[in-house]
């Protein structure tokens, strides 16, 4: 690896995904650096979730490449990418409703056993696994719900459960898709603290956000996506002042950058 790319953990190169005639993601190239919090913002339908789905393997690129820690991952199945250490949350939460909150997290802790035959032999309710699950629940603040069926949780807690499950993969890179959506002001602040804490533990974070104030305050760097293309890239202050960005937001949904 060349010195310049030494700290690049994820890199997309001219990444594209078309749905019929729609270019949901169009020749997007960007890098995620080790240890940063990178924000991906843009109006509705800009292609943010599609970028996440491409990185995590739920969609195959129409063209372009994705490299994670120097190796190509486009073409891998989602479970393989997850086991490489890319955790993700879903914008539309997908809890294992019938399992308890703890079991939801345990499901992620099994990630390195699933491809082996040990998965068929070993019980999952082992004290060490349960301890690790409970520690993760503590980090995201779900301890008191450990034995509750996930399907009964309100949306705010489900978003935290999404993060908890992704953390169970022991990820190197964490993809958060609008984790702050629908949260109260108070919860948003707690989320910000959580994300910073995770970064301090060495986890790199790529997050999609609609809440501008939150994204601006949290991210080291921001990429603005519009109609599948990168519109701007830079530190939050520069993005906020960028006339192209302001216009894209005003033109599309009438939302001003400062909300």
């Amino acid at each position, binding site marked *: 690896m060349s010195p310049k790319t030494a700290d690049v953990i994820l890199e997309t190169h001219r990444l594209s995904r078309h749905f019929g005639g729609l270019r949901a993601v169009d020749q997007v190239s960007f890098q995620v650096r080790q240890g940063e919090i990178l924000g991906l913002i843009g109006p509705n339908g800009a292609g943010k979730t599609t970028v996440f789905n491409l990185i995590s393997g739920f969609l195959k690129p129409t063209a372009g490449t994705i490299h994670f820690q120097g190796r190509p991952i486009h073409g891998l199945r989602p479970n393989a990418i997850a086991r490489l250490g890319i955790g993700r949350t879903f914008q539309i939460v997908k809890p*294992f409703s*019938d399992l308890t909150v703890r079991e939801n997290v345990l499901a992620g802790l099994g990630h390195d056993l699933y491809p082996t035959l040990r998965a068929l032999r070993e019980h999952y309710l082992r004290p060490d696994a349960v301890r690790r699950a409970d520690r993760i629940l503590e980090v995201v603040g779900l301890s008191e719900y450990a034995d509750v*069926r996930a399907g*009964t949780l309100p949306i705010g807690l489900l978003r935290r459960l999404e993060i908890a499950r992704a953390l169970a993969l022991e990820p190197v890179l964490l993809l958060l898709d609008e984790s702050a959506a629908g949260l109260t002001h108070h919860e948003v602040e707690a989320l910000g603290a959580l994300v910073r804490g995770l970064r301090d533990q060495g986890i790199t974070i790529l997050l999609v956000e609609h809440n501008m104030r939150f994204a601006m305050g949290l991210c080291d760097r921001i990429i603005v996506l519009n109609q599948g293309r990168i519109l701007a890239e830079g530190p939050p202050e520069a993005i906020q002042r960028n006339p192209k960005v302001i216009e894209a937001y005003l033109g599309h949904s009438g939302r001003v950058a400062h909300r």
Partner: protein
Amino acid sequence: MGYLVSVMTFASIWAVLALSLNILTGYAGQVSLGHAAFFGIGAYTSALLAVKAGWSFWPAFVAAVLVTGICGALLGLPSLRVRHDFLVLATMGVNFVVVAVFKYVDFFGGALGIVGLQKPQIFGWTLRGWGFLALAVAYLLLTLWVSDYVRRTWAGLAFATVREDEDAAEAMGVSVPRFKIYAFAISAALAGGAGSLYAHFLGSIFPDHFAFVESIGIMSMVVFGGLGTLRGPVVGAFVLKILPEYLRVVGDYRYTLYGGVLVLMMLFQPQGILGDNSWLWKRLQALYARWRPGPQPRPTSRALSAANPGDDPAPASRSGRVNPGERTHESENS
């Protein structure tokens, strides 16, 4: 007495079938209406080895389990491409094709079936009557143990994630195809053993013993007792297998009963009479708690989310509104 013993033997064999389908449908959420095909593959494997190759029961039984498990893995391949109601269609198709092969390919004995199978022997004793019942019950206990063991393993947890949400399962590092195939293989292998027992108990088998209606019967036993639990399929099989034998009215209307059970359970108690949230099971638990006060056992809910959505034990909404979208825009698993 002999009649009772024979009825109990059949009931035990069907309880194994119900439990094995439960692993596939209750644990892993893959609804199959072709389970009788695996039952038949086990029976035919065992019978052919006994009649054509002169094998005795025990090795034939083991071979039936193995062969059916492998067939299960292969016939489970459609589940990697199709889901939900289309998977049901595909499994029905598998059932028809398998029965057609038994019926129209001479090697399998054709419509005349295979006759002249010996009962198993152990230390020179021939197992018949009580002896065979003991064998069937032992196999049922083994199946119960396997069902319980699998459920507690990481694979059991992976099955549950596949059942609940395939995308989220993948995001947790679970290879959905791998675990679907596991579920099909385990489920089929257990059913294959039941087929072997059945063949050697009856002494002769015919293609129609494994027809689509039998698949419906097995499903109705699981659904009646309670999908996803261990007690449910066993109780379902015993009730629905024994009732027609002793009540003549019911005997004449055996398939009406199976069909009616499916309709009524789906309408009023989709989690089955002994499912975790069912009326009867809650009453029983309340009774038990009153007799023996102490900490409530945590419900280990494993009901099929597809048949038991959410928390709501109410029969069904009467709003007449529907939610047709079953895939989110994010799912595109190829």
